[in-house]
């Protein structure tokens, strides 16, 4: 099957096994550029595994993943990041003992091209690249209201700001696809509201497609244009939030047993 040129992300019949245990199978869905899609399902359904497969942390047992027409199978994680898929983590993975600014600058690594010798000798290429990167990183921190914390250690930020810093770090490389793993986890309702606004703004400003895993249904229903529902490693439903709300299998998966 040829990938549809209009789709940004195409996942086709994806499956993975861990030591004989099937974690995911027959997962098929696609995303258009600039779309916000929610990936939902009960705990242990395999949502984060989908992220780990897209970003190349795991290699699929079968199936294919393409991004902008390029296949991602067999590619290294850092290459996948370079070809335009950036992510955040469920359990926040910042570079804790580095400054907020450096956290963002690290992800801009590939947009600079001076070599180690130029860096060590502080030749003009170093100053040019670093000034440019620092400028862009500060602008990104500004969007996420982190400017005043630029020089602080990432670990010293409160939880909500750490989550925002992770998104800022992912966005500095101008990705085509942003993967957010439970961005609202541990946030209070006010913070979640602010996060929803930020996510919409990010999509509008950067034109990036966003795939997000989230348990907070108000957030999911509020900002996602389409939803993909996973249960026991399989896609049990796809559609608009309104359609998903009506879907019997989804309700059953969430409530368990014989409800409905």
């Amino acid at each position: 099957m040829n990938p549809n040129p209009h789709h940004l992300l195409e996942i086709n019949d994806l499956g993975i096994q861990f030591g004989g245990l099937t974690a995911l199978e027959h997962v098929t869905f696609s995303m258009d550029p600039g779309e916000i899609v929610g990936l939902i399902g009960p705990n242990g359904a395999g949502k984060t595994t989908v992220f780990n497969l897209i970003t190349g942390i795991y290699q699929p047992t079968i199936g294919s993943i393409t991004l902008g027409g390029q296949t991602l199978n067999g590619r290294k994680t850092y290459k996948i990041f370079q070809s335009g898929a950036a992510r955040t983590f469920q359990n926040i993975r910042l570079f804790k003992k580095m400054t907020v600014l450096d956290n963002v600058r690290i992800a801009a690594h590939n947009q600079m091209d001076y070599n180690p010798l130029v860096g060590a000798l502080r030749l003009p290429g170093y100053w040019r690249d670093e000034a440019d990167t620092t400028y862009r990183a500060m602008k990104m921190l500004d969007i996420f209201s982190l400017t005043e914390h630029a020089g602080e250690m990432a670990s010293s930020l409160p939880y909500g700001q750490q989550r925002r810093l992770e998104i800022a770090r992912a966005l500095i490389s101008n990705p085509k696809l942003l993967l957010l793993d439970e961005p609202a986890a541990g946030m209070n309702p006010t913070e979640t509201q602010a996060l929803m606004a930020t996510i919409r703004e990010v999509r509008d400003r950067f034109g990036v497609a966003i795939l997000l895993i989230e348990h907070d249904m108000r957030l999911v229903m509020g900002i996602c244009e389409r939803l993909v529902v996973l249960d026991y490693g399989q896609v049990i439903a796809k559609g608009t939030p309104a359609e998903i709300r009506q879907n019997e299998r989804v309700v059953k998966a969430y409530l368990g047993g014989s409800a409905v």
Partner: protein
Amino acid sequence: MNAATRNSWILNAIALAALSAAFLLPIQSGAVNAYIVGLLITALINIIMATSLNLVCGLLGYLALGHAAFMGVGAYAAALVSIHWNVPLSFPLALLVGGIAAAITGVIIGVPALRLRGDYLAIITLGFGEIVRIIMNNMPILGGARSLRGIPRITTVPVAYAVVIICVTLMFTLGRSRHGRAILSIREDEVAATSSGIPVTYYKILAFTLAAFFAGIAGGLYAHYMGVLNPNRFNFDRSIEYLVMVVLGGMGSITGAIIAAIVLTLLPELLRGLSNYRMLIYSLALILMMLFRPDGLLGTAEFSLASIGRLFRRTRRSAQNEGRDHSES
């Protein structure tokens, strides 16, 4: 370069020049005896060893137990250049060849070894280090266990001092470039680093190779200071000695490594009056240091004149803040 950066550079440059003058003038005037000169050269060589090992242990966060082997490779390569190749500028050339030989060894060892991590990496570097030593012991061209002799004794205090300044400056600037940040990010979180576009394997090998390169240069200095080389000088015990310097200084801190290298070179000599007890005191100091200050002297922080200035300002400000807090309550 903004004004604050420039000022801090100028300040540090002036301080460095003053320090150099205070340090080198007495030696040039011949007021210092050979024993002290020997001690100073040893301390300077140890500074390069400690700061270069810091690239792997501090920046990359990996434990390596074979650093002395790279010094050995560099020492022998540099010595062979000096002995067999009598050309002008042969000494800088010899040091460079020593560094490159060690760097190549670093790549050969690093590529397979860096697939492992944590304790396993420590163990495999130990194994490789010992193998390098045993191979050097069995190579006829190196004189083997009977030692290599007749190396010109060119390393003086000013020469060693200049080489140290160059090496440490390069390591410092490298550490604060996109490459240094990439290496640091691996120490902080390898998964996050690779997910942020950092080719982690490349940077692990780069850090390891650069560390080997500078250790090779230190080896070249050592060879031209001693005039005689024996492979067993570069054994596991030496690697441990350098590791201890890095840890005591605070992993990740270049200035910490420098201070620790100086202190640990001088300390056993200062304790010479207590000659029977000195190694005992040294080992006790090590244990107590770990028990009461496990992050080392400086942690990951750097010592600089600008930071002292900041410290003063901060204490003054916090004193003011305290005053305000009291008046408010």
